[in-house]
């Protein structure tokens, strides 16, 4: 299933946050969205998954979601959004309970996604016992459990420290390599975008417009931090963004 954003304009009151944004997300690819803070990239993600309604334009699903998909558009949130009163297993089972699955079928899904995210031994742990990286892995496991057509990741690594971020990036790449998923990955971290994106959409500062979409011409599995070609792309992205980021930084928030 592909996803398409068609001429999306979005306003909060008089303030235009997104201006005529069009994007294609073909199946099996990860599209990274970067931009200076306040450019509306998280808003765009909420619009893509139907958590908010655009003022103008529309989001289209093209084709049928894959077989066995319980929730076509599935989010991974920056702050994990785990229920603190449920165990790791309970948090994953939460999103399966409304679908009338048989018990053993649900258990099989839970075991599978927990194994894939290396959480099987922590099934019974409560979120407060887990590190930030583990919490985000639980959230990723929960997203995988509904077999999504498109994963919408909202700065999933921003709340984590640098080392954990590296580890989780490797995990995400390993997950994609094993079973390619379609993803929209919002981040303000250029290194993450260059590591994980098949294509990178650069938004301008508010009102957010698509400035450019850049293709990263390496297979996800071949990418390493510090590869000269990737550094070149990262530098190019930074040059594109620097002036905007500077201007965005000096803007007053409450205009």
């Amino acid at each position, binding site marked *: 299933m592909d996803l398409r954003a068609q001429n999306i304009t979005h306003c909060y009151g008089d303030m235009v946050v997104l201006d005529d944004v069009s994007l294609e997300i073909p199946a099996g690819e990860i599209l990274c969205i970067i931009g200076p803070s306040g450019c509306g990239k998280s808003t765009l993600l909420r619009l893509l998954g139907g*958590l908010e309604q655009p003022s103008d334009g529309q989001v289209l699903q093209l084709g049928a979601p894959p077989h066995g998909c319980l*929730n076509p*558009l599935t989010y991974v949130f920056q702050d994990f959004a785990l229920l603190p*009163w449920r165990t790791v297993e309970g948090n994953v089972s*939460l999103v399966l309970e*409304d679908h009338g699955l048989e018990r053993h079928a649900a258990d099989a899904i839970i075991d599978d996604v927990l194994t894939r995210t290396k959480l099987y031994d922590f099934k019974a742990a409560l979120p407060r016992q887990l590190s930030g990286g583990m919490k985000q892995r639980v959230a990723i496991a929960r997203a995988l459990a509904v077999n999504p057509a498109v994963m919408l990741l909202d700065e999933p690594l921003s709340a984590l420290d640098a080392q954990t971020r590296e580890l989780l990036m490797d995990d995400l790449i390993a997950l994609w390599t094993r079973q390619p998923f379609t993803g929209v990955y919002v981040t303000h971290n250029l290194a993450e975008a260059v590591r994980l994106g098949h294509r990178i959409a650069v938004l301008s500062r508010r009102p957010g417009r698509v400035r450019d979409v850049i293709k990263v011409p390496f297979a996800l599995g071949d990418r390493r931090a510090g590869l000269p070609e990737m550094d070149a792309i990262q530098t190019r992205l930074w040059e594109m963004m620097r002036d905007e980021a500077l201007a965005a930084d000096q803007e007053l928030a409450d205009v």
Partner: protein
Amino acid sequence: MSDARPVTFRGGGFRPTARRGTGIVVFVLLIAVIEWGTRAGWISNLTLPRPSDVARTFVDLWNTGLLFQHLVPSLTRLVVGGAMGITAGILVGVMIGLFSYARAGLVPLVAAIFPIPKIALLPLFVIWFGIDEGSKYALIALGTFTPTVVATYGAVDNVDRTLIRMGQSFGLSWMSIVRKIVLPGSLPGILSGMRVSVAIGIILLVAAEMLGAEYGVGAYILQAGALYDLERLFAGVVILSVLGVLTSWMIGQAEKRLLRWRS
């Protein structure tokens, strides 16, 4: 450098820690001072009763079986009235938290009922519900209802919106979101509201037993008060205090059990 000095410690403090037994020591000291004062005579018998006399009155109550004759009807009134008020309060509070119309319509009403001294309504309740148990249940129920409503809708409002957004993003049904996210998320606030409600229930016990009650801790205190029998009055007050400590401890246990997920 030759004059090396250790850095002086200036952190610490401002963090309450558990100090076992301090509370009991304060109690014992206070009672000991009063006992000494009444015996030595610098506290007159009309100012405060002698603690040992209060204790003797209490032992008498126990021995004659009068204690339970008073305690059982009072506890029944507290449990029945409190259960009615708290259940209805949680229900209405959750409704206010979930539905905008319920909020717009009921919040001003609750704000209007809250400050009314419920004692003032006792004659009205006697007419409505009869001089027997009905009016007593109603008074305690109404008294516990309003604080429970306020605590509950505050707790529902405080449930992390990102969790609700998450539930919606996974396509959970409305009922599932309420049952699995909103209610467990508001439980801490509801339980701490119950502490206040139950304490108010105990306060109202005395008021409820002002009319048409032969037995009951409240009736016992009122009779003693009318006769200026300070020993009996204090014995009754001590019973209410113990009841307050006990219910507060019970809610603490419920919190420990139900909110184990909190750090």
